[in-house]
């Protein structure tokens, strides 16, 4: 019998704790497939800071480091400086990367550290039960914006790719989503490129994955995927914001 579809080697057998319909599972798979295809499982070191993906260290089969909230890029910097021949990636959510860890995000990008950042933007704090994130949309109802995000008191969503594209150093900045088959395939290409860049020593690469959180958005998984098209993508347009390889 021929195997036509299998679990990537770079994922362990641990059962994901993610909610039904959450897109973390897809992105984990894409990262693991990438590591398999590039043949870097044995020298990859992943970093999972606080958030829904904090337990990612149980799921990726490579060596893993759990980091404090927001500090994964600083931890990645230390690891990469100590182990320049290894492949280092972080896997961070929006509260982590765009709020408490924004300083580390911007500074690591500005230094052009040769690391790969996978950024899950689902416009909400999932792990703590659905609070407003820096990327929450205007009018979005969350536990801490019960009347909808009001720009007068709660400001505007932060667009990370656009913000980092003002810096000189980053090698690759791309925004993708995983809400249909075509988009998943594009996301895979971007993630693979972000790892390939590191292998080639090109510098800081970040892939922002616009994701869904059916549980805290209060939607069915299907409706959440539609909501990405309807609400998230107008605020967060897909595309490549920096590609030094193409410039």
């Amino acid at each position, binding site marked *: 019998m021929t195997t036509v579809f299998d679990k990537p080697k770079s994922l*362990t057998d641990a059962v994901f704790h993610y909610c039904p319909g959450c897109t973390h599972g897809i992105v984990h798979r894409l990262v693991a497939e990438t590591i398999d295809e590039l043949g870097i*499982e*044995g*020298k*990859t*070191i992943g*970093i999972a800071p606080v958030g829904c993906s*904090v*337990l990612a*260290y*149980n799921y*990726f*089969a*490579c*060596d*893993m*480091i*759990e*980091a*404090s909230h927001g*500090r994964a890029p*600083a*931890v*990645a*910097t*230390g*690891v*990469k*400086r*100590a*182990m320049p021949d*290894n492949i280092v990636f972080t896997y961070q959510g929006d509260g982590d990367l765009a709020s408490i860890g924004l*300083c*580390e995000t*911007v*500074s690591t990008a500005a230094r052009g550290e040769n690391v790969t950042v996978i950024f899950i933007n689902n416009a909400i704090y999932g792990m703590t039960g659905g609070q407003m994130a820096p990327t929450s949309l205007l009018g979005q109802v969350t536990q801490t914006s019960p009347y909808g995000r009001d720009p007068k008191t709660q400001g505007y969503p932060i667009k990370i790719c656009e913000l980092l594209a003002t810096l000189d150093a980053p090698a690759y900045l791309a925004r993708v989503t995983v809400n249909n088959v075509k988009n998943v395939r594009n996301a895979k290409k971007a993630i693979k490129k972000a790892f390939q860049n590191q292998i080639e020593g090109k510098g800081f690469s970040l892939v922002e994955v616009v994701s869904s959180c059916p549980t805290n958005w209060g939607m069915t998984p299907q409706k959440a995927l539609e909501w990405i098209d309807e609400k998230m993508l107008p605020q967060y347009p897909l595309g490549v914001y920096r590609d030094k390889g193409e410039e």
Partner: protein
Amino acid sequence: MQEKVLMKGNEAIAEAAILAGCRHYFGYPITPQTEVAAYMAKKMPKIGGTFLQAESEIAAINMVYGVASTGKLSMTSSSSPGISLKCEGISYLAGADLPALIVNVQRGGPGLGGIQPSQSDYFLATRGPGHGDFHVLVLAPASVQEMADLTGLAFKLARKYRMPAMLLADGTMGQMMEPVCLPDPAEAEEKAPDWAAVGTGCARVHNIINSLELSPAVLEQKNIERYERYAIAEKEEPRWEEFMMEDAEICVVSYGITARVSRNAIVEARKKGIKVGMIRPITLWPFPKAPLLKAADQVKSFLCVELNMGQMTEDVELAIRCKKPVGLCSRVGGMIPTPAEVLAKIEKANEEGG
């Protein structure tokens, strides 16, 4: 030992760290320890090491956490307000059982405080600098020679016990120049420890560097095991120096710069016929309880001399089980007592007896 050279305390720390095999330094500018960073900035690029001026104290300690996760030696240095910012990271280092060195060249506080010498981070250092149940090794140098020697020892003990170590100096120690004999370079790092995150090489199950444990029963056990390790350190590692204690009736307890001042005062007091000596803790955690308890049966009273409002007096009272009175001679805010001020306190203690 190498030949004697004249060095500033902060520079002695930096050179000793390099000689101990540390090749990764992360820091953020703050007075009065910036010479450590400046020295590293010059030296590290020439020996294939890392000097990185981090975007913040928080980033610096997390970069240290990253290097420590790979099993390599790394360090950061700062002064009191910066150490407050590093406390979260130190807690994570302790929770993940990672060795690393944190240098604190203390200045006056609280808040932004001042930039003159202080020992007011005694509690912060000795009670576990951050959230959760933990300790760091705390070493308190009292000379530029000890700045160098204790830096090497701190790395050694941090590795041995898999815990962070703090070199707790003060602004005077950092800024003063003295002759120092630097140690010989440590042997090159052996292969990575088996717990380190260096890549599986597709040859083993993945290593996880982690302080998260959602099972209360397992987390409890991890804390208990960590404290079993601490108990060994408390038994094996206390270090102290005794000065004129043979026939002493008053025991001065002091560390760092105030121990230097006290020494002069003790020599003067002896000329006046006062039987006074000193126990100088070199490790503040583990605290040298045994020699103090032994001295409690010999002396009439203890006198703590330190640059804070008496933080160490609590440890001395606990160590001697409150058997004898414990007095305090202190200046704070960046002020340093003169030998005459310490002498006056010794004379007063002598008059009061036990």
